[in-house]
C-alpha cells in the first residue's frame, strides 16, 4: 500500500464504512480473514492478462489449438487450467484484416476474469459503457486506434454469463518467433479490442 498521503488527514467516509462493515462481518463470523486474504491474493497475483496472452500466443503458434479455441473456447482454455469465476462460459472472436472485434458490458462490467484478471477502470466507466456500442470508431480513436473505413467493426455487449475474448491479429514480421516471444507482444487492451498489436522489435 502506498504511504504518500498525509497521515493527519482523517479517513474518508468510504474507508470508515468499509472498515466498519469488515469488522462487523469478521466479528459475527460471517467471513473469515484467511478467505479474504485468499480472494485478494488470487486476483492480485494469480489471474491476469498473462493468462490471456498465453492463450493468444498459443493460438498464433498452433493452428489446431486455434481452431479448437474458436469452436469451443471454454473447454479449450480449461485444458490449460484457466477455469473459474467470470470465465465459466467463453467465446473467442477473431480479428482479421477485414474484421475488428471490441468487447464491452453496457449493463455492468462483465469481463473474462480467468483470462484477463479484473477489468481496468476505463472498462467500468460510464463513457466506455455508453459509447462503445454507439460510436466504436470514436472510442477506438481515444485509444489511438484508427482503423480503415472498410474494416467491419463488431461490438460484443456482454449481457449474459458468456465472456468474450478478442484474438488479435498476429503482427507481421513475427514469423519463426517462439510462443514465449509472441506472448510478450500481447497486451491486455488488444484482447479487449481497443488496440492493435504493434510489432515491437525490442521485445524480440
Amino acid at each position: 500500500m502506498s504511504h504518500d498521503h498525509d497521515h493527519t488527514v482523517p479517513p474518508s467516509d468510504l474507508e470508515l464504512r468499509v472498515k466498519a462493515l469488515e469488522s462487523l462481518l469478521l466479528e459475527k463470523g460471517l467471513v473469515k480473514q484467511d478467505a479474504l486474504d485468499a480472494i485478494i491474493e488470487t486476483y492480485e497475483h494469480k489471474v491476469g492478462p498473462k493468462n490471456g496472452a498465453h492463450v493468444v500466443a498459443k493460438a498464433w503458434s498452433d493452428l489446431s489449438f486455434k481452431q479448437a479455441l474458436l469452436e469451443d473456447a471454454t473447454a479449450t482454455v480449461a485444458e490449460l487450467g484457466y477455469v473459474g469465476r467470470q470465465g465459466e462460459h467463453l467465446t473467442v472472436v477473431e480479428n482479421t484484416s477485414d474484421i475488428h472485434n471490441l468487447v464491452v458490458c453496457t449493463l455492468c462490467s462483465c469481463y473474462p476474469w480467468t483470462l484477463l484478471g479484473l477489468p481496468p477502470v476505463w472498462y467500468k466507466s460510464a463513457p466506455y459503457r455508453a459509447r462503445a456500442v454507439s460510436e466504436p470508431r470514436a472510442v477506438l480513436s481515444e485509444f489511438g486506434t484508427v482503423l480503415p473505413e472498410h474494416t467491419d467493426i463488431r461490438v460484443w455487449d456482454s449481457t449474459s454469463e458468456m465472456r468474450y475474448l478478442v484474438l488479435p491479429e498476429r503482427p507481421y514480421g513475427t514469423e519463426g518467433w517462439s510462443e514465449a516471444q509472441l506472448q510478450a507482444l500481447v497486451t491486455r487492451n488488444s484482447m479487449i479490442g481497443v488496440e492493435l498489436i504493434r510489432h515491437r522489435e525490442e521485445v524480440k
Partner: protein
Amino acid sequence: MNGGHDLGGRQGFGSVNAEPESEEPRFHAEWERRIFALTLATGMLGQWNIDESRHARERQHPADYLKHSYYENWLVGLEKLLAEKDLVARIEQDAQCFRVPDASAARKILRTGGPTLLPDATQPRFCSGGRIRVARCQRAGHTRAPTYVQGASGTVVDHYGTHIYPDQNATGQRAGEHLYCVRFEGTELWGPESSSQSVYVDLWEPYLEEIR
C-alpha cells in the same frame, strides 16, 4: 429496470480516460481491495446469487449510481443485501446457520465459479439466421435486455443453449431459458447516420419476438 446502470448509447459522458499503463493497479485504494474481497466472501455464503447482487447495485437513484465510483456501488449493493437478508441477526441467533468458507474452500469456489448452462427442457424457438425483434419491456425488476436494443430488429447468430434466466434469478427463483447471440445493424439501433456497424448482444428467449 432501466436505471442508471443501463448505459448503452447514452450521451454526455465525455471521452474515455484511456490509461497509459498496460496493467494498472487492480485496486486504487485499500478500501477497494477490502470491499471486493468482502463482496466475494459473503457471496460464498449462498444467500444470494449473482443477479440479486447485480440488482442490489442497480436499485439506486440513477444520479447516485452514476456519481459513485465502481466499488462504491459494490459497497452500496452489499450493505443492501446484508440488511435485506438479515444475515447478522440470523447468525447471532444460530452460529451454525451458515457454512462460512475458509481460504481453501474460498479458492475452490473461485475455481468452480457459477456455470449457468442448464439442460434443455424445451426446443429453442429461434435458430441461427432467424429474424427477431426485441420486445419492449419496462418492468421494475432486474433484466439483461438493455434499453438500446428494445424494439429493434436483429438476426440470431448463435444459440448458446439453456441458461439461468436473470430476470427470474434476481427474485431468488432459478429457471432456465434459451440464450441467443443476436446481431443488430448499427443503423437499426442508432439511425441512418450512424458509423456503428454491428452490435452483438446476448438475449434470452422471453425478450424476443419472431418477425414473420
